[in-house]
């Protein structure tokens, strides 16, 4: 009997579109980490990049369960919509979520904050490394992209961290082909970036193609904001309007969602992934330039934070 599956002409080529290529590379990286590391974790913040990595993990490991827990480093400075989204996704997927809270590091005394409203981006690195040693993680999978920032452009796909969690940009292991060097000694760990080679436009194209759900604040909504130079600062309980501030109600969306004290939306009416993508093609400001107050301070600020263990 001739099986149904054989009733086709065997083709000779099978070209991949650029999104297929990126997707397949990311799946390969995730499976390598799962195959070579004993105790990885996938960082899931509820942001769009980590939502994409999460979908890629489903693609890599379904119908089985994910071979690692999800890890969220909770700054306590969150957009409520993002936390709600995080919990909804975790429940839908039936996976395990580990939350490492900056608040707990503050209680332990390992993080000291000057004021409640200071950005907690730097503190995040401390809490993350505490979670690495508490849970014995040997690899952290994250959604960082090389196109985000100049220091990230040099980052390996699988990147080594010493026993202090530090990144030494001058002593990186050369990374050839897709052969990742995952050898570790006790206390050391790896960072793995499956979407290293994606651009912001690729991420949005993929979200559209795959119908990946995101927190609503990624799409156009009305919000009270204050103009600060080229940036729009959202008015929130942690970033209230000051005496002379002029509060405006604008239609905006977020391009990234980070610490609420330093993440700014952009004016936009884009309500769907395709509309966001269309705007991305016409954007004149980079993702971080338009939205992050912390990266602008010095030319080298990202590189310094990365060396200290920041993701």
């Amino acid at each position: 009997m001739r099986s149904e599956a054989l009733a086709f002409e065997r083709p000779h080529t099978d070209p991949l579109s650029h999104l297929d290529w990126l997707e397949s590379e990311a799946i390969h990286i995730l499976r390598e980490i799962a195959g070579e590391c004993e105790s990885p974790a996938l960082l899931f913040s509820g942001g769009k990049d980590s939502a994409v990595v999460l979908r890629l993990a489903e693609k890599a490991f379904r119908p089985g369960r994910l071979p690692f827990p999800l890890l969220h480093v909770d700054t306590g400075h969150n957009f409520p919509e993002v936390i709600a989204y995080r919990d909804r996704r975790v429940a839908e997927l039936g996976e395990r979520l580990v939350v490492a809270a900056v608040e707990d590091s503050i209680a332990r005394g390992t993080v000291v904050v000057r004021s409640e409203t200071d950005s907690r981006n730097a503190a995040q690195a401390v809490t993350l490394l505490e979670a690495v040693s508490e849970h014995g993680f040997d690899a952290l999978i994250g959604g960082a992209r090389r196109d985000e920032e100049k220091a990230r452009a040099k980052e390996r796909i699988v990147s080594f961290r010493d026993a202090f969690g530090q990144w030494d940009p001058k002593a990186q292991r050369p990374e050839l082909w897709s052969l990742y060097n995952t050898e570790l000694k006790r206390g050391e760990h790896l960072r793995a970036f499956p979407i290293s080679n994606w651009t912001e436009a690729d991420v949005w194209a993929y979200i559209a193609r795959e119908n990946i759900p995101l927190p609503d604040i990624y799409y156009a909504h009305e919000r009270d904001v204050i103009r600060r130079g080229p940036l729009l600062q959202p008015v929130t309980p942690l970033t209230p309007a000051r005496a002379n501030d002029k509060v405006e109600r604008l239609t905006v969306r977020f391009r990234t969602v980070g610490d609420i004290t330093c993440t700014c939306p952009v004016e936009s009416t884009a309500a769907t992934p395709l509309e966001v993508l269309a705007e991305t093609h016409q954007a004149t400001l980079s993702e971080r330039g338009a939205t992050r107050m912390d990266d602008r301070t010095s030319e080298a600020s990202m590189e310094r934070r990365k060396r200290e263990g920041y993701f």
Partner: protein
Amino acid sequence: MALGDHSAREAVTGAERDGGVLRFVTAGSVDDGKSTLIGRLLFDSKALLRDQAEAIARSRHARADEGELDLALAVDGLEAEREQGITIDVAYRYFATPRRTFIIADAPGHEQYTRNMVTGASTADLVVVLVDAYRARSGQLLAQTRRHAAIAALMGLDIVVAVNKIDLVDFSETVFAAISASVDRLARALGVTARIVPIAAKAGDNVVDRSTRMPWWTGPTLLELLETTPLRAAKAGAALRFPVQRVVRAGGSTREAYRGYAGRVESGLVAVGDEIEVASSGARAIVAGISTFDGPRTHAGAGRSITVTLDREIDISRGDVLGPPGIRDATAVRLIADVCWLSDAPWAKGRRYILKQGTAKTGAVVTDILFRRDPAADLQEVASPGALAMNDLARVRLTVQKPILADAYEDLPATGGAILIDPYTHQTAAALFLRSAEQDESASEWSI
């Protein structure tokens, strides 16, 4: 419909014009203008955005004349590089045209960083070798240019020579012709072909936009060359190589119990109904299904991540490679390879390194250095001093603990390339370009 909407929809649907991803590496001597060229490609294809351009303009280290962007600063990433004005590690850059998506590995030009070019080139389809038209105006190529072309030839890349700073020789056709003749001679000596294009990266001539200042040039622009080069992975007719990453079990002991082999097709094509063989054991089976999260497929070509199921239970684990019947005959324990030493710790004679090929790891000893290659002299063989230090290129004989595929790098780069990892420092010590199995049984008495 707005133009933006149109390109957005195309990006999502992977429209017919999607020419996939071309990866290329840039190589040149210090100050040939590599960083400027990359900045130009990004700027003219609009991948370099306004704030990034402004950050360049307000940089403390800008070298350009007043009022001009120093495009090179867009790509020199690390603090030390900005201070010294040099590139010290491989950086990756991205841009897309309506025809294709590009990933650039920016590899530095200094002699002591040959390893970075090898690293950048390992994932590339093509290399753009920059030549400074002014410095080469007599037709004489720099040693560093010869070195980069040699490494590209060793690694089987397509070579495009971009003759930059043509403005400094008054857009002279005669100077270009002299350089072109030297490039042809070099390519012949290396046994490769090279395409060549005259450009001025700083002003943008023939990079993305066609120059009006070189009416004698009727060939393609650099971007046109990049858009039309065939992709390496798409090479039809290559043998199947499917390294298994994970064995997937689901469904426990139910009727739907499922055992699959997850991995990426590294070369060739696999289809349902094909007979496959496991390289390590020679066991054979028929492909019963190819599954993905998005549903079953009838076939999958190079580059696709899939899960394969077979018509019978055979012993397969991570590190195994599925290939066509007969693949077991392509494995060996003693092999000949070209090596590029990457680590600052030199080769330790007798040390057992960890060799990684595909998803397989095994112990490996470099038993003999057959000869060294001089990359500045068209890869000429030179007598071996019996040592290997960082940036050295050599032909070696090696013995591995468990048989690996003796795939020739020029035919099957995904499995013909391997790395050595130092078992003590865990540094990536060397890149291997496998050439063949060692035929001479008496060649070495090493047992491992």
